[in-house]
């Protein structure tokens, strides 16, 4: 199990229109996300929460600074090594990015395929996680027939099916009712208890109704600070 995911002096800037100038979305962020804890990052829309999660997941390269996983600078690793490390990361995106040609079960099985194990094991694991997220009745359905909330639960199941060491969830309950949000909160808590690093980004003020948070950070003006 990982001990910590950290950002050191992390800056991310994006190009400002056609000119060569850039706008810094995140500025010199230093933070540590320890294993076995659930960390909530809150902030207004556009504050950079999703960008920070994408950086932590190795999907974006920082403009400067680095992301350290167990002290290793994964953000500076060669692409092939970073991709291999990313297999240990489960990401719940704001958009679900489900493959519309596949069924729900096939979508959830996808992260297991590069791993060893039999198709039977993949199916059983997928069924199990879907059941825990109250979505087992959807297994044979095409994802194109699902509602927004159902799609989000399937995407969450896909992120968690492989019991990842790092769980990065971006607004994971945006389309969920309280009962389903609480189920997800329970799953994330269990993952933290087995030692995983859990980082949740949300602007929902009622997060405490479904998720027991160990640390609450606030992202504003490019800076990440403990929430008041």
């Amino acid at each position: 199990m990982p001990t910590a995911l950290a950002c050191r002096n992390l800056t991310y800037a994006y190009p400002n229109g056609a000119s060569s100038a850039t706008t810094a979305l995140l500025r010199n962020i230093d933070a540590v996300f320890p294993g076995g804890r659930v960390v909530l990052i809150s902030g207004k829309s556009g504050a950079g929460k999703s960008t920070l999660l994408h950086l932590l997941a190795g999907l974006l390269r920082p403009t400067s600074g680095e992301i350290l996983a167990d002290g290793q600078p994964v953000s500076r690793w060669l692409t092939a090594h970073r991709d291999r490390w990313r297999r240990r990361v489960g990401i719940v995106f704001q958009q679900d990015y489900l493959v519309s040609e596949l069924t729900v079960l096939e979508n959830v099985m996808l992260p297991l395929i590069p791993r060893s194990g039999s198709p039977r094991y993949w199916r059983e694991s997928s069924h199990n996680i879907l059941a825990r997220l109250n979505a087992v009745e959807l297994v044979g359905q095409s994802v194109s027939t699902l509602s927004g909330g159902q799609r989000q639960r399937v995407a969450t199941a896909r992120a968690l099916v492989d019991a990842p060491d790092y769980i990065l969830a971006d607004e994971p309950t945006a389309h969920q009712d309280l009962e389903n949000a609480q189920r997800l909160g329970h799953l994330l808590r269990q993952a933290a208890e087995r030692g995983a690093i859990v980082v949740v980004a949300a602007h929902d003020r009622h997060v405490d109704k479904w998720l027991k948070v160990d640390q609450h950070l606030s992202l504003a003006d490019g800076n990440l600070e403990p929430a008041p």
Partner: protein
Amino acid sequence: MTRHPLLLAVFTTDILTVLLILWASATAVRIALHWNPQDTGAQQLRLQTQSETAALAVAWAFGLHLLATATLIYGMTNILPGMVPGAMCGTGVLQAMQSGGPRMLIYRLMGLAILWIWWRIENVNQSQPEAPLVPANARIVLLALPVFALALYAAWQAALAMDFQQPVDCCAVIYDQFHSLEEARRTLGAGHTGWLTAFGVLTVALVASAVAAWKTAGRRWPHLLLAALAMAWLPIAAIALVRVLAAYHYGVLHHHCPWCLFLPEHHLAGFPIWAAWIVVAMEAPVAVALSLLAARQAPPAQTSACHQAGLAARNTLLAVLIFLCLTVGPALWWRLRFGMWLTG
């Protein structure tokens, strides 16, 4: 100047190769000037991304160069002789290309050797998450650029010189080398028995050192010995092949032509034989370069470099054995079939 599609294809591929290496060289210069793995600033992170893209460009250049060289050799030996009056194999085509032809081949082989070393080091580099050998490979890319530019210029000169109306005398080049039979039986003052003996002794020594280097990949001296023996073996193997052993492919004596081996009537044997010879020429120095490199690296990269050095030694061994089978094999077959050597 000829506008044969084959030469145009090779020339276009060469231009593309030079452009890719030129592009990678721009990054290589920046790496040489600014690379600092301890720095996490924007410039260093940008350089890290660019170094991966540049490595991809050089890998493509290497592949294109191999493809163009194989196409050129095939064309020179199996297509262009039919168009150059008087040419029967690559010897006549080279004659038609005048001085540009041999220079083009030399620069091509040099370019191949440089990118071969780059590729082996890149394998070690890619095996490490933080790519510790980026600066070393950047310097190799900078070394490759002038060689590839010269190869392109020589190819241009060779294509310019070719004239399909101008006859050449292919056989005169081969047979004018000697004035008497006695001269034909000697090379550089030594008889062919002497060359064959040297070839045999060096081959046995090379095989033994390749096995030693392969099995003791972490030690430096077997690789140094392997490289030294390979450098001695290469010219002697070439002489033994062209002056003595090729006769068993041709079925006639004193036809000292390295290019006729590539012809279909000799089962295109030149391709695997000379490919094996080139592999020895490339892999043996790579094995020593990697074992020297391993000594200067941190433990994870060191292990990977040792592994690659072992692979290079194993490839050298396989190439020598292939060369041996394809050159000595026909001679032994001849001896078994007819009960005597071609020389009596």
